[in-house]
């Protein structure tokens, strides 16, 4: 589907016409990310992060496939095979550091992509399915990243695997059998390492499949935009190519610069030193922490310290999963018809002064040792997190009086420019 004024694919070369008859793959690409996809003309740089997430996934898949050619998933040799990659494989250090820091970059852009969606109301009708599929991708990413971190078989790999699979042990009655079944043993060992490697190789391709669905679902209503106002006519849109391919090119350049700074000049900055110590089941690290991108969830997990009907550990596990699962209900929790946070004064305040600091504080506390005052701070911040989505948002959407919306995207663009023209051949509509 597309807007009626979308450019039509018209192959000129006879071969391309032949292809179009037999297998219209070029037509599909043209309509998906080429001139055939009309996009609102007013997107800002926050709309770059979807493409950047796709680029990050590609970097992970390519570096990961080559790493898998040299890595050995066996508890006896895994650690040394990673060091073999670092020392003896041609450019192996580059591949491994690119893959490890690429995971961090992937999460950075995906978090920005998610918060873009949260602020501009991209989860609302008619794009609920886009949001739900995006959350599925996020969950798959978390699983993939977690299993990938286990593969080097360092101390944090081992103890991280033990803690995270231990979460299933909190389930009453069947918890421990489930944990044993997941690990293929009573503690992480060769069986766990092998299955994690297998799944770590599989899941990125599942992610790729869900991304296709995500983009497909997006192309039904078309992209949203910073005003949140629906596209009304041809003057509101520009073709994806060349306009947004050019803009995404700039974003990609900046992304690669940040990635390179990390990769070449601080490759271990985001990692934990303990993971350069081979896994040792007999020696527990002083502080077991996951990678930085899990810190907010780890803080929520550890915030429950008192048994209340259920054991504290079970509360922590339920809350951690709930903190992500509740996002699936967001389109129905926030019923405000206005999408963009720019026109929602109350929502905007709670977003910038409530949610954003709350998530940053949770992230900080999740990386800190489980001591006071960090536990008390995470308890407050976790309480705000749940209150924000489950209590505050539904109330705001009832009582808030949104600012007047522009009549169209074009009108909002014209308001920014004094000469009253759009600058292109399309005539500005009479006011």
């Amino acid at each position, binding site marked *: 589907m597309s807007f009626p004024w979308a450019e039509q694919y018209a192959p000129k070369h006879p071969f391309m016409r032949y292809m179009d008859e037999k297998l219209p793959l070029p037509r599909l690409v043209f309509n998906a990310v080429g001139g055939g996809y009309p996009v609102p003309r007013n997107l800002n740089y926050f709309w770059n992060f979807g493409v950047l997430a796709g680029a990050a996934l590609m970097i992970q898949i390519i570096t990961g496939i080559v790493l898998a050619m040299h890595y050995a998933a066996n508890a006896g040799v895994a650690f040394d095979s990673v060091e073999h990659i670092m*020392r003896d494989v041609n450019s192996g250090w580059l591949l491994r550091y690119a893959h490890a820091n690429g995971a961090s970059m992937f999460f950075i852009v995906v978090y920005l992509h998610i918060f873009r969606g949260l602020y501009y109301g991209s989860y609302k009708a008619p794009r609920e399915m886009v949001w739900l599929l995006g959350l599925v991708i996020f969950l798959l990413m978390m699983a993939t990243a977690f299993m990938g971190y286990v593969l080097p078989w360092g101390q944090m790999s081992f103890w991280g695997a033990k803690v995270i699979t231990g979460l299933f042990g909190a389930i009453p009655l069947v918890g421990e059998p489930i944990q044993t079944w997941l690990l293929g043993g009573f503690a992480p060992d060769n069986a766990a390492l092998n299955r994690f490697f297998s799944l770590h190789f599989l899941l990125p391709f599942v992610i790729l499949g869900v991304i296709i669905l995500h983009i497909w679902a997006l192309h039904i209503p078309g992209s949203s935009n910073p005003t949140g106002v629906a596209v009304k006519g041809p003057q509101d849109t520009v073709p994806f190519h*060349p306009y947004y391919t*050019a803009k995404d*090119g700039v974003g990609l350049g900046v992304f690669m610069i940040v990635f390179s700074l990390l990769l070449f000049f601080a490759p271990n900055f985001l990692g934990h030193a303990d993971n350069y110590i081979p896994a040792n089941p007999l020696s527990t690290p002083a502080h077991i922490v996951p990678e930085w991108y899990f810190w907010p969830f780890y803080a929520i997990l550890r915030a429950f310290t008192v048994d209340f009907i259920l054991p504290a550990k079970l509360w922590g596990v339920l809350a951690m999963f709930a903190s992500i699962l509740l996002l699936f209900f967001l389109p129905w929790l926030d019923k405000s018809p206005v999408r963009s946070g720019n026109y929602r004064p109350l929502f905007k305040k709670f977003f910038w002064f409530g949610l954003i600091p709350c998530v940053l504080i949770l992230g900080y506390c999740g990386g800190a040792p489980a001591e006071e005052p960090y536990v008390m701070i995470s308890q407050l911040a976790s309480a705000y997190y749940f209150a924000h989505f489950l209590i505050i948002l539904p109330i705001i959407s009832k009582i808030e009086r949104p600012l007047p919306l522009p009549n169209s995207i074009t009108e909002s663009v014209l308001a920014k*420019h004094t000469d009253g023209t759009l*600058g292109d051949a399309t005539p500005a509509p009479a006011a």
Partner: protein
Amino acid sequence: MVRILGPIVGLGFVGVLLWSLMWGAIAFVQEPPKATAEHEFHKHPEKVDFSFNGPLGKFDQAQLQRGLQVYKEVCSACHSLRLVSFRDLTALGYTDGQAKTLAAEWSTETPSINPETGEPATRKSIASDRIPSPFPNEVAARAANNGALPPDLSLITKARHDGSNYVHALLTGYSAQPAALLKHFPEAKTGEGLHYNPYFANLNLAMAPPLTAEGQVSYADGTKPTVDQMAKDVSAFLTWTAEPKLQNRHRTGLAVLIFLVIFTGLTWMAYQNVWRDKKH
């Protein structure tokens, strides 16, 4: 439905969290967390001005050679370097011949078998061998070290926070226990067979001070072998063993950044050009 159940679930979580917070706060007030000796007396390593610091840093080959000498004459009595091969030492400026000689003359031989009988034996190392470990296994290492296991040093500067500075600080940081520590934390008195060192996480480690006197090794290049100098040299050497491709990484990074800055500049110009006639 969602709008009814959502707030109920939300109130549930918020309630349990505030309940936890209340009990935590009560415990915090009634019994504030006690200061520990580790918390009060643990020191972070001071920054050393290594040649490989910074985005364009390089190894100082002469320093790495001196560091190897310190490792060989002091550390290698207890600590293995199992990820490093003799042939790798050519990166320190040695020729292939010198690497072979280093291997053949190493104090410990490489484990092998007697080709006639199949009995366990040892043989002289060759360049492709890893540096042999001082002890045949962990049990032997513990038995010779009062139950403590001297860690392998191949990755030590990456396996400790701020590792290069840490190794230097640890080697030079041994001291007597401060009187204030013994006064406030009498139970933290350094135990039998342990040594006080404020840079070690729990302040007391089994390793006796390995670098004790100036001139413990004699450097061929005339550098004065002070304890501080030996500690710096061996930290630099162990940074190389942990990250042998550091220089390669810095150099590649510089080239990649130059390329990317130009690339991004071009994409910016293309972007400006494409959008020239579109207000947005």
